[in-house]
């Protein structure tokens, strides 16, 4: 794959950050070498332009034009109570907290981990679990994606979650990334690795939230390995500050009979891009990629999903919904590749958008490339507005116009919200959806 790039200049402003990291950060030589290789790739690729097919509807020049400072030392000033707003009313989740990109053990809840579960901050694995650390960079394609390359070059911190074979982890695991006002004009490149062992199962929530309306840039990458017969339910909650930039990639590799159930919720940031990629790398796998994005004002929110059916007898289900108000711009690009060997693939993709204003718009692009002949793959996209008949029906029952609109807006998202298996998250996101467009 070749990607057209903008030449040189973008990378230069990041060179200082990279060099600073190379001289001040006490990372093992193996990590340093990986960072160098990744920075070289980033320098070669540059930031993607809209001539790049994968970025056709999303210009990253607001990110490229800014000089962000790498948040390299602990700068957070967040109190424990402030985190309550981001925990969906729960107190019993396994929680690892990062503030402005750095691990905060004092804010985390990592005691009493269930048997079979280990959670580390990334830096501690460099010396404590080098075999695990070595897997970082082996799942995600950092050679061809500039933001992933950039993350790989500047990664400082993050989390490593491992679930031992046959373990069923009951309580959700929360990777909570918070920014506060000290993140202003800064950038963070969180890097996570999630490994779910044979026949194990777990639920991981990855939250990107903020207590500030400052401008900053989050560029996160999460690598996921789901081994034979294992199940990972993954929720990404993007509620960055309204002036923030967010690019986040989740890339999974699935082994035989494994299941990946992903939900991506995006409501924050001025400009955001979420990539959810998975490869069905063994027979009998299933993937469910669902998502909901709520945009208003001048927000730009982009989702790209990619399902690679590399083996026979796998299924993928995809339902993404967007609610767009104001002058917001939504983008959905759903890629499905079916390799020649992947017979009996059963794939379905749906993207529905509700436009609440005449000035909001959506670019939706299904992209199916099918090289096997005995497969069932469908896709569908709809773009609509509030149903006037339904609105009148509600009003005729005494429900005022504003509430009726709110109810119908929520109702549009109801089916995708209902797929959320964690009650606290479902209830929380339902409330956010109801309250968002008043």
């Amino acid at each position: 794959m070749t990607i057209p790039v903008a030449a040189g200049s973008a990378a230069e402003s990041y060179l200082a950050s990279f060099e600073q990291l190379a001289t001040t950060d006490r990372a093992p030589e193996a990590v340093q070498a990986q960072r160098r290789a990744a920075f070289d790739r980033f320098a070669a690729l540059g930031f993607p332009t809209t001539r790049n097919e994968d970025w056709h509807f999303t210009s990253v020049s607001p990110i490229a034009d800014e000089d962000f400072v790498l948040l390299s030392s602990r700068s957070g000033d967040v109190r424990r109570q402030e985190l309550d707003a981001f925990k969906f009313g729960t107190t019993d989740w396994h929680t690892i907290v990062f503030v402005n990109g750095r691990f905060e053990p004092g804010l985390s809840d990592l005691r009493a981990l269930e048997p079979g579960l280990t959670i580390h901050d990334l830096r501690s694995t460099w010396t404590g679990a080098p075999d695990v650390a070595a897997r970082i960079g082996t799942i995600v394609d950092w050679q061809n994606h500039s933001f992933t390359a950039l993350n790989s070059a500047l990664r400082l911190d993050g989390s490593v979650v491992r679930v031992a074979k046959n373990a069923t982890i009951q309580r959700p695991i929360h990777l909570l990334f918070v920014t506060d006002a000290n993140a202003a004009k800064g950038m963070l490149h969180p890097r996570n690795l999630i490994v779910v062992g044979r026949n194990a199962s777990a639920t991981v929530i990855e939250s990107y939230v903020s207590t500030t309306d400052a401008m900053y840039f989050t560029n996160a990458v999460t690598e996921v390995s789901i081994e034979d017969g294992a199940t990972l339910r993954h929720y990404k909650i993007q509620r960055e500050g309204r002036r923030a930039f967010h690019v986040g990639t989740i890339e999974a590799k699935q082994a035989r009979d494994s299941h990946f159930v992903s939900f991506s919720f995006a409501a924050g940031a001025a400009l955001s891009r979420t990539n959810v990629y998975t490869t069905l790398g063994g027979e009998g796998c299933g993937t469910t990629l669902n998502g909901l994005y709520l945009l208003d004002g001048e927000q730009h929110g982009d989702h790209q999903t990619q399902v690679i059916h590399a083996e026979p007898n796998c299924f993928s289900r995809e339902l993404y919904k967007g609610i767009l108000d104001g002058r917001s711009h939504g983008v959905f690009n759903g890629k499905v590749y079916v390799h020649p060997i992947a017979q009996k693939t059963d794939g379905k993709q749906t993207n529905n958008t509700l436009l609440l204003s005449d000035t909001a718009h959506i670019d939706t692009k299904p992209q199916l490339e099918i090289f096997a002949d005995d497969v069932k793959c469908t896709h569908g996209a709809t773009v609509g507005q509030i149903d006037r008949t339904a609105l009148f029906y509600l009003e005729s029952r005494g429900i005022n116009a504003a509430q009726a609109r709110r109810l119908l807006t929520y109702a549009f998202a109801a089916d995708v919200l209902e797929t959320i298996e964690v009650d606290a998250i479902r209830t929380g996101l339902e409330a956010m959806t109801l309250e968002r467009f008043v």
Partner: protein
Amino acid sequence: MSLLEITGLRANVGDKEILKGLDLTVDAGEIHAVMGPNGSGKSTLAQVLAGNPAYEVTGGTVRYGGKDLLEMQPEERAQSGMFLAFQYPVEIPGVSNAYFLRAAYNEMRKARGEDEVDPLEFADIMEQKLALVDMDPAMLQRSVNTGFSGGEKKRNEILQMAVLEPKLAILDETDSGLDIDALRIVADGVNALKRPDNATIVVTHYQRLLNYIVPDYVHVLANGRILKSGGKDLALELEEKGYDWLTGGSTAAVGAGAA
């Protein structure tokens, strides 16, 4: 003072005039049947009274409980006790029937200056209302009208009517698409809700429903006007002779799609 006084009402759908100077007066305690051929304007009358913005009122006045109905928003009309049972009840996927009914019920209570009820209190209220229309409580957990059969949708309309206890109920072709058992259930529900201080307008094409909901007055609507009014016997006469003897055969086929 009459509950509803319609004088010279004119209304358009798009550029097409459907109601062409309609007069109708309804008092509390009365049941009025509005009958007429397809395209006569029956459903337009029902929609205009409920305030559907898809219809444009171009002339005439409507006074409801002494107030200017045409100045009121649809939700104000509902909060003032007007209820339209839709000919085609709208499906709203994603909103449960229980939530919808409680939201509507609480809007009525708020409009009357009463406290809202919580889901538990509301469940008690629903118990007897469900029995009235012979409806399975499980229907409350389903999305509003979504995947309901024709009969279930119509029963759901009467259930809403039972919950909202309107002063003026307008039943728009509530009998259409119902088998005889469902028709009886719906009619029994309407009759049970009749009180000296409320009124019902039954809009229908056929006399069949009027065997079960016996009107005090029958009006024949044709070509956008009330052509003839009478007692319940008029309905029987229409059933026997059709509409042509009143309309001279000229309106029977007019704009069937616009009803």
